[in-house]
C-alpha cells in the first residue's frame, strides 16, 4: 500500500531501492511502493551479479519489468500486478506472472517466454517478433497486433480464455492460438475484426468462428492433421506451463485462419 505522509503529497511510489535478499543464485526483491526505475535497476544488477532467478514480491503497477533484458536461463517471477510493457524488447529470459498482467505485454519482444497465470490486457504481443507468450485467462483488444516472423524467429502466443476485437490484426507472421477455455467473458470466444489486415502467420482457434467475426483478409479452414501436428508441441508446452490438460485442449476441433494475400494493401499504396 502507498505511503501516507502528513507533510507532503501521498506518493504512489518512492524512489528507493527495493528490499533485497539473496539466496545463492536466487534474488528476492520486495518492491512494495518502489518506483519502476529502482526495481528494474535492481533486477539488472542482480543478473549482472550472477543471479539466475529474481523473485519480485508485492508488485503493483511497476512498468517495464523484464524490458530489454538479454540472456538465456534467466527467470523473473512476478507476484502481484505488473505495469505496462512487461517484457518489452525482451531477448531470452522467462517471466512468470502469478496474477493478471496489464496492457502491452511482450511489446516487440525478441526471444524468451512470458507466462501469465491470470488475464492479460490490450495490445498483448504488439509487434512481437520472437519468443513465446502463454496466457491462462482472457485477453483484451488488439492482441497479437502486427506479430511478425523473420528467418528462424517465429513468435508464438497462446491465450487460454477469450479475446476481444481485432485479434491478430495486421498479423505478419508467427503463431497465434486462442483456446476459449478459461474465459469469464460473455458472448463468443473472440470478437470481430479477427485477422483484419493479416498478411502472414497463422491463427488457430479452438472452436468455430462466424463469417462476421473475420476480417476480409483471412481465409478460414478446418485445421487438418498436419496443422495439428504443427501446434501440438506448442500446446503441450503451454499445458505444462499452466497446469492444463492437453487431451482436453485437443478434444475439440480447431479452426485455422491464414491470410488470403501476403500483400493485402499492395494495390492500395503502390504507384501504378
Amino acid at each position, binding site marked *: *500500500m*502507498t505511503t501516507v505522509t502528513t507533510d*507532503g503529497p501521498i506518493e*504512489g511510489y518512492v524512489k528507493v531501492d527495493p528490499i533485497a535478499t539473496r539466496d545463492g543464485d536466487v534474488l528476492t526483491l520486495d518492491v512494495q511502493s518502489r518506483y*519502476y526505475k529502482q526495481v528494474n535497476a535492481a533486477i539488472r544488477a542482480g543478473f549482472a551479479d550472477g543471479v539466475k532467478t529474481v523473485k519480485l514480491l508485492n508488485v503493483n*503497477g511497476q512498468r517495464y519489468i523484464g524490458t530489454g533484458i538479454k540472456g538465456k536461463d534467466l527467470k523473473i517471477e512476478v507476484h502481484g500486478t505488473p*505495469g505496462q510493457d512487461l517484457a518489452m524488447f525482451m531477448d531470452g529470459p522467462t517471466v512468470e506472472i502469478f496474477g493478471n498482467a496489464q496492457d502491452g505485454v511482450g511489446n516487440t519482444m525478441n526471444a524468451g517466454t512470458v507466462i501469465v497465470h491470470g*488475464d492479460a490486457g490490450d495490445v498483448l504481443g504488439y509487434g512481437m517478433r520472437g519468443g513465446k507468450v502463454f496466457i491462462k485467462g482472457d485477453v483484451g483488444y488488439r492482441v497479437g497486433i502486427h506479430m511478425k516472423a523473420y528467418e528462424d524467429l517465429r513468435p508464438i502466443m497462446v491465450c487460454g480464455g477469450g479475446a476481444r476485437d481485432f485479434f491478430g490484426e495486421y498479423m505478419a507472421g508467427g503463431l497465434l492460438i486462442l483456446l476459449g477455455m478459461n474465459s469469464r467473458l460473455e458472448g463468443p470466444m473472440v470478437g470481430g475484426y479477427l485477422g483484419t489486415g493479416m498478411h502472414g502467420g497463422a491463427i488457430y482457434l479452438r472452436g468455430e468462428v462466424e463469417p462476421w467475426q473475420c476480417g476480409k483478409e483471412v481465409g478460414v479452414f478446418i485445421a487438418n492433421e498436419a496443422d495439428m501436428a504443427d501446434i501440438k508441441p506448442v500446446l503441450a508446452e503451454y499445458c505444462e506451463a499452466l497446469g492444463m490438460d492437453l487431451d482436453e485442449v485437443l478434444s475439440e476441433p480447431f479452426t485455422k485462419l491464414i491470410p488470403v494475400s501476403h500483400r493485402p494493401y499492395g494495390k492500395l499504396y503502390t504507384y501504378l
Partner: protein
Amino acid sequence: MTYEPLLDRMPTTRPTSGAGFFGERPKYAEEAAFKIHGGCGLMGICDESGTLMSGVNAIKAMAVQRDRGNGLGGGYAGYGIYPEFPDHYCFHMMYHDLKAKEESEAVFDQHFVVDLAEPMPTRPVKGISDAPLLWRYFLQPDPYKLENSEMSADDYIVHAVMLINSSVDGAFVASSGKNMGAFKGVGFPEEIGHYYLLEEYAGHTWTGHNRFPTNTPGWWGGAHPFTLLDWSIVHNGEISSYGINSRYLEAFGYKCTLGTDTEVAAYLFDLLLRRHKLPLELACKALASPLWTEIDRMPEEEAAVYRSLRAVYGPAMLNGPFAIVLGFNGGMVALNDRIKLRPLVAARQGTKVMVASEESAMREVLDAPDKVWAPKAGEPVIARVKGADWPIHGDLHLSAGELSCAVTGVNDSCEIVEVG
C-alpha cells in the same frame, strides 16, 4: 432553452473599454505553446451502500498512475462531501484575478441567495504554482427570480454557469452541483489532492484524473473533471467529434468555453439524461453508438431502435478514442469508445465498484477484490448508490421493447424523443 430572458437581467460582459477594478488588462486567454502526445489516467470509485470514503482513496489510485500524466493537470470530483449543505448548489470558482471575482459575485448576489462564501481551503504544495483565486459558494436561486424565469432550478443554474463561463472574463465554474465538488488544477493529481486537503472530505463516490494534455492547453480550468450541475466527467482520450458535438449543444443553449474537448461529454450527459430523460443505457449507446455492422446483426426490433437512435443523436455521438467516468449524486458510470481505444478496467469488492485505467490503481485501494474485469467497449459499468435519488430515467437494463418505447415515445415517461 434560451439565454436572453435571464441574460437581460444579469450583468454580462464588462465593457470592452474603460477601467475595471484593476484598470485595463488584456483579455484572459490560455494558449497551447506546443502539442504533446500521450495518455491520461483516470479512476472512479463508488460505494453502493452510500458509506462515505475519504478522498485519500482517490489520491492513492491516482498516485500509482502518476506516469500516465505529465503534471499539467490533475483533479477529482467527490459526492456526498457537503452534508452540512445538502440542498444548496455549491459553486467551486476559479478566478484569474479580483476583477473576475467581483463580477462573478455580482452575478451571485443578483440572482442567488448565497448562504456561505469562503475561500477554498488549500495548503501550499511544492510543485503547485500559479493557482487562481479559488472560492466556493453555497447558494440557492433567488426564489422570486427563479419563479419569474419559468425555469427549473437546475436549468437556472445551468444558465448561470454558461453565463459566467462565457462572459465573465477570467472566471470559471469548476463545479455547480449539490453536495459535490470538483477539485482540480495544474499539477500531478496527488499534489492537487494534497493542495485541496482532500483527506478532510468524505464521499460515497469519487472520480480522479491525471492529465497529459494533447491538443489543448494545460491550465487550471482545463483540468478534469468537467462538470455541470452534479454531473462530472473525467476522460482519457480525444473527442474528435468536438466540433459537431459543440455545435449540436449550442442549439440547446450550452456554451463550450473551456477550450477542451471533454467539456462536451459533461453537457451531452446533462442533455440526454436530465433534459431528454433518456434511459442510461440508451444515452450511453447514443454517445458510443454500436457500429452499423453490429446493428445489422441485431434482431430487427432492436436494430430499428439503434438505427433511430443513431439518426436522432448522430451529432451527439462521441467519435474518437475515449474512456470516461461520469459521476453524479446517484452513483457512477464508466464508458469506453466502441472499439476500446483507451484502457478501462473495473473491479468490485463488496458494495464498492471501482474503475481505473490500470488494474494496479484498483488494487492500491481494494485489498481483496471479488472480481476484476475489463469492460467491453461501449458497454457501461454502472454503480448505483442505494437509497440515493437516481436521477436517471429507466432501469439499468432494458429489453428491446423497453428501448423501443423510450425512443419512440409510446410511454409518457419517455415522451421527449419522437421518432417517426
